[in-house]
């Protein structure tokens, strides 16, 4: 099973365009990433630039419309992720609890959907 651990930094919607995490945090994060690697569970990870540098494409009335950040009205925006392999949701949660986060941060643990989870008609539509 695969899980994505989504990092939701506190108040990331207000982060400045040139925001970067501190050297201290990066050092802790690197150690944490190493522990995931050494345990053989880490599949991939990325950090995302602040939402102020992002764009949102909204779909409405059959049209797609792009808007540039910031999105001050939005809350709990993703700042990065880890993709890990785990035996259960509990194991993924256990890994998440060990991450070096700042006060007020959130990690959302989401299981990757597999095509096998879909009913047959949906699988057929996916060419399966």
């Amino acid at each position, binding site marked *: 099973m695969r899980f994505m651990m989504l990092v939701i930094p506190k108040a990331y919607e207000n982060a400045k365009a040139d925001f970067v995490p501190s050297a201290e945090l990066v050092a802790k994060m690197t150690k944490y990433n190493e522990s995931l690697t050494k345990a053989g569970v880490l599949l991939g990870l990325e950090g995302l630039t602040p939402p102020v540098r992002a764009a949102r494409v909204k779909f409405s009335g059959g049209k797609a419309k792009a808007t540039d950040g910031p999105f001050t009205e939005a809350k709990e925006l993703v700042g990065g992720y880890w993709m890990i392999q785990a035996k259960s949701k*509990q194991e993924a949660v256990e890994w998440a609890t060990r991450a070096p986060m700042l006060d007020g941060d959130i990690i959302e643990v989401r299981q990757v959907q597999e095509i096998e989870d879909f009913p*047959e008609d949906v699988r057929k539509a996916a060419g399966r």
Partner: protein
Amino acid sequence: MASDAHRAIEAVWRIESARLIAGLARMVGDVGVAEDLAQDALVAALEQWPASGVPDNPGAWLMTTAKRRGIDQLRRKQMLERKHAELGTELEARQETAPDLDAAIDDQIGDDLLSLIFTACHPVLTTEARTALTLRLLGGLTTEEIARAFLVPTATIAQRIVRAKRTLAAARVPFEVPRGADLGARLASVLEVIYLVFNEGYSATAGDEWVRPALCEDALRLGRILAELVPQEPEVHGLVALMEIQASRLRARVGPAGEPILLLDQDRARWDQLLVRRGLAALDRAAAPGGAYGPYTLQAAIAACHARALTPEETDWTRITALYDALAQLAPSPIVELNRAVAYGMAFGPSPGLEIVDALTSEPALKDYHLLPAVRGDLLKKLGRFAEARAEFERAASLTHNARERALLLARAAQA
């Protein structure tokens, strides 16, 4: 809810058990005793954590508890005072150092884990015993999970593990990392066990299911752990590369009804590109410039040829034949010859391929191997010798033990 707590403890166990057992084994010098102590600590956690909650550092809690039990046990058994003192000092030393990621502790843990892997895969044990013990001690799997994975009764696996521990103790196998000339052979034994676990998941030898992805994941996890512990060993990276690339096809090699889909018929859009990338990166680590390729690295390089081809037609079969030629030199086996025949058939036409296969028909090791007639049937069909091809596919179908594979082979017989 108690069951939530139990699931959380199971998760902690999965993460911590190998390091816990390894650390204890170094202290007591016996993996059997170490595992018993670790199990005692697990029982204590199951009793206490549902009420107290999971401690902040569950790994350290388990280690401390297990060591206390160990000391109690030693006292009860009135073992040598010296040994007792040693264990006591060890306990104090461990408690003083923060369980944080201090480099020295990391090295020690790494060394303990490696010793545990080498002990579990020790040549005094049968391959079956090594496999069960490795999954149990390193993979954190329960006896029931191992039994389910290999479709044998739980009692059989339990027996196998008990006997394995007894054998290790009787043979006085030291808890250590082999050095010097010994290391190569011992490492080969470890890699063999990991790949065996992977293969049982990748193409199950028995049962109704053609693949069991959880076993592949267990093997991959073990391989990745090992690659971090002995990064200087190219063949470890070769094995990891091979498993990552093969696992990238897991979703594509099973059809909607659970039937196997052969490599060249697979929808390559369904290949897992994350695993492909990981595999190619591991292959880069294995194939350092100037270094000779070992057998796993060669197989990974072959798998990479397929992974890099966006369509079957783009496959570099000529390179694959060269890699199989090298593999046949380095690690000759009837199976390698059979695969070499397939590659020659693809690169240079069915006749050169059939020539290699025909040399194998008297090979005793392949007498009951279903893929020999399957490959031969395929080459015969390409040569327009349909009646012979049909007979070969039917023979292949009668030899396989896997229900899904049998159906596929019978379908090919009907088409020939």
